[in-house]
């Protein structure tokens, strides 16, 4: 049996590919392909982080390796880590972070009026079928859509995702936070007769929060 040119080390969250530095890249790819074909049953549909060891690869080569791995197994590589980050805890963080980001693009619904003192927290995006009254708080790691009046405190992208947005049919929040950016409502009378804003969307850009009427242009700029 010939000497192994590719060794796979794995832990719960990631795999480290130890590669021989003395063979050509083409041969290496072939060996990787074979190695993953034979072990694909072991990994099944796992989602993992990937790290390289034994040989330094440039960006294209890394992508090539990932392509080969994914072609020859049902593994899903969520991210690539640098060599000094090989520790399991780093991989864990990285994988869970990506997983969360993915989750925040999923949504859940809440039906009813959120009243003063009530707090709704969500790991995912959230759609409220009702009003968010003054004094109520919504914290979401994703986006927030309110099919009603938004008058409370809203916190989107709570895990730090600045691409998160907030949309409401009547946008009059006391405070909006998106990731680390905070905006508050203008000072003025607490009660003014029936001023509905119409559907609006709020997003963060360069450390500011912008609120705009929902138009095609604005929606085109939203990243999900």
């Amino acid at each position, binding site marked *: 049996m010939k000497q192994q040119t590719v060794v796979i080390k794995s832990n719960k969250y990631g795999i480290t590919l130890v590669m021989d530095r003395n063979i050509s890249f083409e041969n290496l790819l072939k060996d990787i392909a074979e190695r993953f074909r034979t072990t694909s049953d072991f990994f099944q549909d796992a989602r993992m982080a990937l790290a390289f060891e034994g040989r330094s690869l440039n960006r294209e080569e890394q992508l090539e390796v990932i392509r080969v791995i994914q072609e020859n197994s049902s593994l899903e590589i969520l991210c690539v880590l640098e060599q000094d980050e090989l520790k399991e805890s780093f991989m864990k963080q990285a994988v869970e972070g990506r997983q969360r980001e993915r989750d925040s693009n999923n949504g859940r619904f809440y039906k009813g009026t959120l*009243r*003063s*003192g*009530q707090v709704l927290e969500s790991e995912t995006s959230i759609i409220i079928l009702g009003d968010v009254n003054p*004094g109520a708080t919504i914290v979401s790691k994703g986006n927030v859509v309110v099919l009603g009046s938004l008058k409370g405190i809203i916190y989107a992208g709570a895990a730090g995702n600045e691409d998160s947005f907030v949309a409401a049919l009547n946008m009059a929040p006391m405070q909006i936070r998106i990731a680390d950016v905070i905006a508050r409502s203008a000072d003025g009378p*607490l*009660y003014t*007769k*029936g001023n509905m804003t119409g559907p609006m969307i709020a997003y963060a850009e360069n450390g500011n929060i912008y609120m705009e009427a929902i138009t095609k242009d604005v929606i085109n700029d939203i990243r999900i």
Partner: protein
Amino acid sequence: MSEVIVITSGKGGVGKTTTTANVGTGLAKLDQKVVLIDTDIGLRNLDVVMGLENRIVYNLVDVVEGNCRIKQALIKDKRYPNLYLLPSAQTRDKTAVNPEQMIKLIDELREEFDYILLDCPAGIEQGFKNAIAAADRALIVTTPEVSAIRDADRIIGLLEANEIKSTDLIVNRIRMDMVESGNMMSMDDVVEILAIDLMGAVPDDESVVISTNQGEPCVGDSSLAGQAYMNICRRVMGEEVPFLDLKIKSGFFGKLKKLFK
């Protein structure tokens, strides 16, 4: 079939006790057997508004602690034979009673009365928890002010969390002249924020102050507030009653004044 109704607001001074006294008296006028329970232990005043303070021997805490029987503590109203009051204690505080004891007490009263009205203390602490423990439904009293509405909103949320599903709104002390000039929220504005059904609106009427000071609820008299309270009582009983026009009708001189404005 008896019904237990808690009258609550969150904020103090919006008219819970006055509403309890008037709705209770009104229901008694409509031939219902009614008991009013003052759950504001330490700050009792429903008995004062009802003009029954001088008759108190035993109170709510005495009943709960077993110092007397319920019958001994119930005060029969001086005007209506089917109206009773269970006064609260003045010398104790809210911790003297717990929700389980309230449920037990009210279950005993259910057998005998058509309506059991609970006058809830302000706040959301022990006293509030005691008052809502046994309630089937709630009347939320608020004035058209942002602070009272904010508290009412919180209270509605807490009632929902405690599975009291039937909550209705009473907007108290509304001044139609201010509503018309745009300086006060209208009933519709309040209902829009709180998103619950309106049971009635009571105008800011000096007859309420006068009747309170005399220990004689104004419900059913000729004043606008008295009519408004009577309508609320009918709606509580499930009748469909159109809403009153709360605009103060200007007399001959008022009309004359308007002409020259």
